[in-house]
């Protein structure tokens, strides 16, 4: 095709932005279009939430253990070993827990959605759904995005609890503290301003993971290689979005609570 005009990169980028806006508009319109796919939504919540629980739990537990083991020598040097529960709980609940769990979910969920929908595109299942007069956006996209938006905060909450429990076990390697005292110290050190903004940002993390996964999958090219590209691209983009959302959330939280 010697007469084809090469499209500059910035035009492609703008086109992609336009496509994402269109995709987002279609998603919003289909939420309120009626005939919500409740059974598929519940199935996706199970797939996304329950099936990610083990990975999130193990990762959070290890993070709790590692953080205590890393923090202890420094705090002991300053004679502040008693501050370990507070330091862990504030850092874990505010920042480390949501971001690590967000990244884990981006890796597991966004790639899975991207690959699944990409594969459906390649095998013409999306086309088949569309030409049959059914609504693939409502059945596949709306349910997945809403399921990730609902389940990532739940996973983050459970991850926080498991991470803090891991911290408790690690603390008892060198020191002795009862579980009830540890729990009291953790609860006393946490305020609503630690907990609520962290949970709110995980809602946005969940939305970003679902949106990017669906967008990359539905817009993948035809051909088997594109399935891998869609999955990979979904992980990279969703992970990047998690850091961007986190940076914005930290700024907004600082303005609201600490200024």
């Amino acid at each position, binding site marked *: *095709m010697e007469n084809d005009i090469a499209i500059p990169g910035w035009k492609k980028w703008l086109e992609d932005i336009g496509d994402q806006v269109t995709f987002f508009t279609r998603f919003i319109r289909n939420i309120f279009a009626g005939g919500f796919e409740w059974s598929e939504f519940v199935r996706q919540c199970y797939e996304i939430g329950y099936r990610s629980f083990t990975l999130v739990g193990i990762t959070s537990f290890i993070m709790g253990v590692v953080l205590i083991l890393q923090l202890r020598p420094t705090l002991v040097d300053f004679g502040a070993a008693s501050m370990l529960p507070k330091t862990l709980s504030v850092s874990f609940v505010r920042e480390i827990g949501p971001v690590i769990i967000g990244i884990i979910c981006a890796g597991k969920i966004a790639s899975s959605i991207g690959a699944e929908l990409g594969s459906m595109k390649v*095998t013409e*299942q999306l086309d088949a759904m569309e030409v*049959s*007069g059914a609504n693939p956006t409502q059945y596949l996209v709306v349910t997945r995005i809403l399921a990730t938006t609902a389940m990532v905060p739940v996973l983050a909450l459970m991850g926080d609890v498991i991470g803090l429990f891991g911290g408790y076990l690690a603390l008892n390697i060198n020191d002795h503290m009862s579980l009830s005292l540890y729990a009291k110290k953790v609860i006393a050190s946490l305020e609503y301003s630690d907990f609520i903004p962290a949970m709110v940002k995980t809602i946005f993390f969940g939305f970003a993971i679902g949106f990017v996964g669906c967008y990359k999958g539905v817009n993948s090219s035809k051909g088997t290689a594109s399935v891998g590209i869609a999955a990979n691209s979904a992980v990279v983009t969703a992970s990047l979005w998690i850091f961007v959302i986190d940076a914005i959330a930290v700024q907004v939280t600082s303005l609201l609570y600490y200024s």
Partner: protein
Amino acid sequence: MDEKETIAPQKQTNGKSPDEIVISIKGLKKSFGSKNVLRDINLEVKRGENVVVLGRSGQGKSVTIQCIVGMLTPDEGVLKVLGSEVSELDEKELKELRTKIGFLFQGGALYDSMTVRENLEFPLTRVLKIKDQAELDARVEEVLEGVGLADAADKLPSDLSGGMRKRIGLARTLIVKPEIMLYDEPTTGLDPITSREISELVLDMQKKYKTTSIIITHDMECARITADRVVIMEDGVYIAEGPFEKLQHSQNKTVKDFFKDVS
């Protein structure tokens, strides 16, 4: 076109006029970049007629039926399906038109996360909004028996062979009782025996459901079995059309090339 033959064998057409034109294509053009895939397509399909489009790969056969169902928008030309100009339909009207058209994809395009039963129920519950389980079961059983796979309802698509997937794909399109069927290479990738079975099934289903069909293929046996009329496509235009038997004796070189292995 080098050859034209008016064919209109009287067929069963569900009580509607057999002379009614259900698909009318005039001057259809479609390009992708600098490649002109459809250059000037003209075709009329009467109710109850089976039209087979033959052509080499990459000639734009599938693009034509994708335009018919509104998956692609033509650059130029008039394309009317059941009296509606497809490019002028809004989203809702297009969706409504699509409920009257069945499209069988090359690989069957079964939803691989669903069982055969769920695949078949999907268009019934989402498109026709049927909620009554007894009616769903009756329709599923009817089409499964029709395609000879009555015991496959609870299987997953991954458990089915290529021929079975095509049959289930056909069942899923027929379950909504469409007026028009579009087949995109229904026998590609199948062994000769299964290809023949699928071709005969296409014909049986056409008789049973009284559909109007366009069948895209380069399988001459499929064309011979299913066609009321054959259209031959080359370089984005139809170069010949007529009954299979007539084209078989054509002197046109391209047409002869297609039919040279047909006994």
